[in-house]
């Protein structure tokens, strides 16, 4: 399993060994891989995306996989991928000791923040650690802002809500403080954030998938698609902005 350094850095000062963990918004399972490699007793990877669920499972399955192995990186038996909404996590109260939200909140619309924070707090055991790793709003002069704005416009048209929201670390810190958590530490994980060609292409792909909902002959559809291609080509790649790592603690 290939674990990004942002994940290993975020986890390095937390007691993962032997802990029951929850990866909130599993994506492709980066934090799940990191938690398992750090010796988590059990990881619940929660995602509402079927493809992500399959990818997360695939990543921890190696060709020589054997649930009896002692190798902590290959212990598939310690992983449960739950296909569920983070506003209704299928776990009992006080069930987990470590929660990661690695690159989660930038894809959570403002309207859903409270429900997710409440639910994460419900499943958190007393003394639980919460790791919120996310992006500060990109700087005003960052070219990627235009692509993100386009993505939000397309998502707004298709789904009625934005695709991306960049919450400053302070804002998420205050949100969770309101649910009884205390901020333990705040560190910079990436500065600058590399938005590579493949990242930009992935964001352009979101635009393309959302405009599918618009009528085929729509001028707006053609304009959005054209703009996405132009931006991807013009930006190429860019390093801009900051990824932060916030660690919070629920009182004992």
């Amino acid at each position, binding site marked *: 399993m290939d674990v990004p350094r942002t994940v290993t850095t975020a986890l390095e000062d937390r007691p993962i060994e032997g802990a029951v963990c929850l990866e909130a918004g599993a994506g492709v399972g980066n934090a799940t891989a990191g938690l398992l490699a750090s010796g988590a007793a059990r990881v619940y990877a929660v995602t509402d995306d079927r493809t992500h669920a399959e990818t997360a499972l695939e990543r921890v399955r190696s060709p020589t996989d054997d649930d009896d192995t002692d190798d902590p990186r290959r212990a598939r038996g310690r992983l449960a991928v739950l296909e569920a909404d983070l506003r209704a996590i299928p776990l009992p109260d006080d069930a987990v000791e470590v929660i990661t939200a690695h690159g989660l909140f930038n894809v959570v619309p403002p309207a859903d923040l409270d429900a997710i924070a409440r639910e994460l707090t419900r499943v958190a055991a007393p003394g639980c650690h919460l790791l919120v790793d996310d992006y500060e709003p990109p700087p005003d002069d960052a070219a990627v802002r235009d692509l993100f704005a386009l993505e939000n416009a397309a998502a707004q048209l298709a789904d009625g809500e934005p695709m991306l929201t960049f919450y400053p670390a302070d804002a998420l810190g205050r949100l969770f403080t309101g649910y009884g958590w205390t901020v333990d530490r705040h560190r910079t*994980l990436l500065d600058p954030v*590399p938005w590579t060609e493949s990242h930009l292409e992935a964001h352009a792909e979101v635009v393309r998938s959302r405009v599918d909902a618009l009528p085929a002959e729509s001028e707006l559809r053609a304009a959005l698609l054209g703009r996405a291609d132009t931006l991807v080509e013009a930006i190429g790649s860019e390093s801009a902005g900051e990824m932060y790592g916030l660690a919070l603690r629920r009182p004992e």
Partner: protein
Amino acid sequence: METRDLGSTGHESTVATFGAIALNWLEQEGANQMVELVLDRGVNHVDVAPTYGDAERKLGPKLRQHREEIYLGCKTQERDYDGARRKLERSLDRLGVDHIDLYQVHGLEYEAELEEITGDDGALAAFRDAKEEGLIGDIGLTSHGNPQLILDAMDRIDDLATVMFPLNPVVAAKGDDDHDYEAVLERAEEEGIGTLGIKAFAKGSWPSTEELPEADRPYANWYEPVDTPDEIRERFDFAASQGLSTVVTPGDPKLVAMVLDAATRYDGMAESEQRSLVEEARHDDSPVPEQLHH
């Protein structure tokens, strides 16, 4: 330019080491000028090999003129006693000096080579005899290959003073054992072994020769390098921040001045910025180990 302990050798190497393979691509006059430039920037460690074309001969004149200012590294690909001795004598002759400060096993790739080198009639026995005679100073090893093999070598060679190996964000981003040079760095640190970083400026492997004939490559490097001042500086700062004793300059003379400039201005790199470079390279193809033969 910043200097650092080269392990327990007692020598403090500048954070940049001049890879004298660059001299192979220059006429003698240009080679002289390049060595003057390198020394003028404060570099005190020069690395060369008999396999670098005419580099030993072209280094010779300026090396002899500035011998006291230079910690001289050289190496051999010979694995047996007689071969290693012969190549050492030839290097001394071509360089025109009577002492090489660091003599290295060049390009270790296979376990069997390690067996041969450490055997009774192996190259290391020749190195040790030469050391007693005062022909060489410290003993080192270079490898572009499996980091585990370097660790094995560290276990088996008690008097190993330095190791040279690839280190760059592309390699650092790979989480597997084949690229775990971090483990080599850690062990070297524990055991007081000096570390020389190569391929710091590698962007990737060259396209196949069918796509891009060797003659059309814009740089005389074994790999496709980064080549803008900002990228060069980022890569230098990254490599120097990993804890290496020194970072070896790339093989193409056109890039050397930019690297020296970066080395002169080096003042560390924030950890978050190091992670940014690693993250950027996370999905890139590694130029190691595809282009082993250096």
